[in-house]
C-alpha cells in the first residue's frame, strides 16, 4: 500500500500546518521526516540532512510529539524526563520547569500508567521540547488536551516560533491553529493538493484581498478540498 505518492513539499521557517482528512498520509509524512519510517523512493531532507541515514544528527535537532504517545507505564513522569534529558544532554531543571509550565507538576512523581490521555500528551509535548530543537514536529498535538492545556501549548509554540524554531503541525482541530499557521499544505490520499503561505491560499481560494487579515481555516480547508479532491465523500 502506498501511503505517500509523488509528494513534493518545501517547508519554510515558521509554523507549518499539514491538513487533511483521516488516512491522508499526515502521520506517515511526519514519521518519515523524523526518521521513524523509511521512504521507499525519493529524497527527504530535514535541516539539510537525510533523516534516515543521518538519524542521530537529525533527531538531536528535531522534537517529535506522536499522536498517541506511549510510555512504559511503570515509570514516573520524572524518570522519563530524566532519561530523555540525559540522552539529549540537557539540564534536568529546565525540563522540570517545562513540565511545570505544562501543568505536569502534580503528577510528575506518579507512574505514567495512571495518567489520562491529556496528561500523556502534555508529557509527550514536554519531551519534544527538551533540548531546544530547531524543528518541532507535532502530530495532532491538541487532540487530547483540555482548553487550558491547548492555550498553554499554543502559546509555547508561538514563543518557540518567535525564537526561530520551525514547527510542523498535523491536526484536525483547524480552529485551534488558524491564528497560528504561517503556511500550510493540504494532503489527501497521500498527495499534496496545494501548499503555500496562508495569505496566498486565502486569496486564491477565498478571494480575500492582500490587506485582509481574517483567516477562516475551516472554509479554506473546504475550499481546497472541493476544488482539488475528486472524491469528496471520503473527506
Amino acid at each position, binding site marked *: 500500500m502506498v501511503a505517500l505518492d509523488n509528494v513534493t513539499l518545501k517547508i519554510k521557517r515558521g509554523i507549518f500546518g499539514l491538513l487533511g482528512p483521516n488516512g491522508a498520509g499526515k502521520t506517515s509524512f511526519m514519521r518519515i521526516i523524523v526518521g521513524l519510517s523509511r521512504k521507499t523512493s525519493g529524497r527527504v531532507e530535514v535541516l539539510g540532512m537525510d533523516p534516515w541515514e543521518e538519524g*542521530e544528527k537529525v533527531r538531536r535537532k528535531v522534537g517529535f510529539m506522536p499522536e498517541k504517545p506511549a510510555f512504559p507505564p511503570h515509570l514516573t513522569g520524572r524518570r522519563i524526563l530524566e532519561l530523555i534529558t540525559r540522552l539529549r544532554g540537557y539540564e534536568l531543571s529546565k525540563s522540570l520547569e517545562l513540565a511545570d509550565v505544562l501543568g505536569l507538576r502534580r503528577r510528575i512523581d506518579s507512574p505514567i500508567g495512571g495518567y489520562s490521555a491529556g496528561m500523556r500528551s502534555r508529557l509527550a509535548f514536554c519531551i519534544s521540547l527538551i533540548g531546544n530543537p530547531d524543528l518541532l514536529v507535532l502530530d495532532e498535538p491538541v487532540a487530547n488536551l483540555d482548553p487550558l492545556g491547548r492555550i498553554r501549548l499554543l502559546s509555547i509554540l508561538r514563543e518557540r516560533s518567535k525564537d526561530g524554531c520551525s514547527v510542523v503541525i498535523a491536526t484536525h482541530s483547524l480552529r485551534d491553529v488558524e491564528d497560528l499557521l504561517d503556511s500550510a499544505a493540504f494532503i489527501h490520499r497521500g498527495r499534496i493538493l496545494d501548499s503555500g503561505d496562508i495569505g496566498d491560499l486565502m486569496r486564491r481560494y477565498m478571494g480575500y484581498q492582500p490587506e485582509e487579515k481574517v483567516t477562516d481555516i475551516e472554509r479554506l480547508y473546504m475550499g481546497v478540498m472541493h476544488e482539488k479532491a475528486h472524491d469528496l465523500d471520503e473527506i
Partner: protein
Amino acid sequence: MILMKFELENLTRFPILELILLFLAIASFSPPVAASASFSTLGEEVYSRISFIVSKYFILSFSTSYVPTVIVTSSLIAASLAFEIETGQIELLLLQPIRRGDVLLSKILSISFIVVSIQLLSALLSSATYYHKFVVYISPASLLISLYLSLLSVMLSMSLTLAIFAVLKRSLLSTMVALIALISPAFANVKFLPPRAFLRATDLDFLGLLGDTCVMLLMSFFLLVLEYYLYTRRVGT
C-alpha cells in the same frame, strides 16, 4: 550506560529473579536425575573431557537453572520486546539522538547481565543445596559454557520474536511462536550445540572443541546480525 540502566529498570519490573528462585527452591527438593541423564547423551568422544569436568556442575546447577533461566527469561524478554514495538514505547528511545543499534545493544547487554546474574546465583544456590551430597567442582570453563548457552538461547528467542513480529505484527502471537520454537527442541532433547562431526582429526578433543567453538561463535554472529537487521530495518517502519 544511561540506556542500559533504563533497560534494566524496564526488565526487572518482571519478577524474573523471584520465579527462578522459586523454581530452584522446588528443584532442590528433587534429585536432578532426568537432567543428568539427558546430559550424558552428550558425553561421548569429543564431549568426554568436557563432560568429565563439567558434569557435576551441570548436574547441580546447570540442570536446575538452565531450563527455567532460558524459558522464563526468554519468554519475558521476548514478550516485553514485542510489546514495546507493538505499543510504540520503543519509539520513545528511537526518537532520541542515539544510533538505532545502541538501543538494541543496550537491550542485549542488560539481558545478558540479568541472565549471567541469575546463572551465577543459581550456581551458588545449587552448590549450597547439594554440597552435603556431592563434591562440587565448578570450573571456569563449565561456567562459561553454561552462561554462553543461556545467552545464546535468549538471543535466539529475541531474534525469533523480532523475525516473527516483522511478519505478523502481533506481539502475543510472536512471543508464543518464538517460545514454542525455542522450547520444542529442548523437549525433543536437541541441544543448541552444533553438530560434533564438524571437525575430525587425530586430536579429536582439541579440534572438536575448537570446531564447536567456531560454530557457536558463528551462530552468535549470525544471530546478532539477524537481530540488528530486523531491529534497524523493521522496527519503526
